[in-house]
């Protein structure tokens, strides 16, 4: 089978979306996971449940609520419009925000688990050696939680790659702006372009398989053993 005449736009856009989303997720997810791991607040379980919601919720339901929230009068879209003068729905920025919610559990849960495994003890040791809280986080907790970070990045990235329902609800299908890989595949199937659909699907399949294999291999070889 020769490589068919392809529009590479959706693939590139998807990678961009997943990349940006992962960065945003790490910035948001790290403090959240840290809080979940160490807080004694009674709201902990509540927050944990909210973070896990995207795992069980149908993407269309999540997408519907996000569509409302990102709209020009929505909870997020309203202030965004006041601030920037443009709407959020059907834009790349809107997609990033939607993907952040959608993939949140896939980043927060591995980090939460990793921080819990590190525990307070090494941190107390670091503080007693003169390290500030932030210093101890970067020089002790983070390197010890490196496996959790690796899982978080890969799962967050891979999960955003395969996003369909949410994107369709909040992003639509605008080439070069919101038309991501999974939607492109759907489009190809709709018009019976099975060759293109096969090709894009295979790319996604092989990529996902490879990345997971690499991660599991690295994870096994990492020298950190948190007892």
């Amino acid at each position, binding site marked *: 089978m020769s490589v068919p005449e392809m529009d590479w736009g959706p693939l590139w856009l998807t990678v961009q979306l997943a990349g940006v989303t992962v960065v945003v997720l790490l910035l948001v997810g790290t403090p959240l996971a840290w809080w979940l791991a160490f807080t004694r607040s009674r709201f902990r379980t509540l927050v944990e449940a909210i973070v896990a919601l995207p795992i069980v919720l149908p993407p269309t339901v999540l997408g519907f609520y996000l569509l409302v929230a990102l709209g020009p009068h929505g909870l997020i879209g309203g202030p965004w419009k006041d601030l920037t003068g443009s709407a959020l729905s059907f834009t790349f920025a809107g997609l990033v925000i939607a993907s952040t919610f959608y993939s949140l559990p896939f980043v927060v849960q591995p980090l939460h688990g990793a921080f819990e495994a590190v525990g307070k*003890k090494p941190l107390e040791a670091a503080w*007693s050696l003169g390290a500030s809280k932030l210093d101890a986080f970067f020089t002790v907790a983070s390197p010890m939680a490196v496996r959790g970070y690796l899982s978080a990045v890969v799962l967050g990235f891979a999960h955003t790659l395969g996003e369909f329902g949410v994107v369709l609800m909040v992003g639509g299908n605008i080439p070069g702006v919101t038309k991501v890989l999974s939607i492109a595949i759907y489009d190809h199937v709709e018009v019976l372009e099975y060759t293109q659909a096969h090709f894009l699907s295979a790319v996604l399949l092989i990529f996902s398989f490879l990345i997971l294999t690499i991660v599991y291999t690295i994870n096994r070889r990492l*020298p950190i053993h948190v007892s």
Partner: protein
Amino acid sequence: MSRLDARFRIDYPGFCFDVECTIPLEGTIAVFGSSGSGKTTLLRCIAGLTRASSGLLRFDDTVWQDDARGIFLPVERRHVGFVFQEARLFPHLTVTQNLKYGMKRSYPFRRRIAFDHVTELLELETLFQRRVSHLSGGEQQRVAIGRALLTSPQLLLMDEPLASLDQQRKKAIVPFIQRLTRELSIPVLYVSHALHEILQLADHMVLLKEGRVAATGPIQDVFSRLDLPGLVESNVIGAILETRIAEHEPQFGLTRVEFLGRSLFLPQQVLPPGAPLRVQVLSRDVSLVVGAPPATSSVLNTLEATILEVSESPGDQYAVEVKLDVGYPLLAMITRKSFQQLRLRPGQKVHAHFKAVALT
């Protein structure tokens, strides 16, 4: 000499931790008590790892905590070293990196303990490039002690640092801890529930019971008190003497030590002549002779003594405790029958025969 003024109160469900004490910071200060008496809590409060709901803590004139004024200095700014029960080494760093972690974060003008000195003292040179996970329990604990020392702390807090080690490794580490206070002159607050460790190491003692201070003072005083629960039952009441090794008599398997210009004999020691040796004379190992001492006796240690005071023995209703003065306070536990036959009374001159035990 520095000192620590501490007052902490924490209300736990079913347990109240309420401690008030002044601790002179010189040599080794033991914090002793049964498990659950609040030893670790006291140490953690001093370090700032646990925040008492109401507390006042002063290191000399520096206030570390004063809840009335809303002051709480975070642990990283107290310049104390903390050695935990488990070594808590950082698994992603090598031994050298672990050792230097705190040192790099200390102000250069505070550093008064040299890297080479510590590593030599704790015999760490052979471990430098090893992975932390490949060290034995004793090696890990030595690295942890070194790591804490290299921050040049003004106070070293040790929370049962030997608890997780077996007897043989314990024996190997105790001499290192003894040398720390002597060679580096860092005061050590040492938590333990092992009496023999305390007898061996401590100069001063804080005795905790059910979250309160039951006694505090120089170790010689605390161990010759008869009213302290936990000590009396353990049969460790007696005098503690700081002696110096004079000579060995290998043909008899004995070592002669000097104490206040007099000679005492005890089973042969490994330390060289001139070395300091702490010796305990348990009250149950002392017997009394009234009148002229026998010209010959099989007992090696005999001292002239004056009876200071006689009191009930708290551990045994058929015995009495006699406090003696041999130029130093000595305790003797004798039977009630002997006490009546000898008609002992304060001020009387007697001879004390006793067996001395080295605390090593």
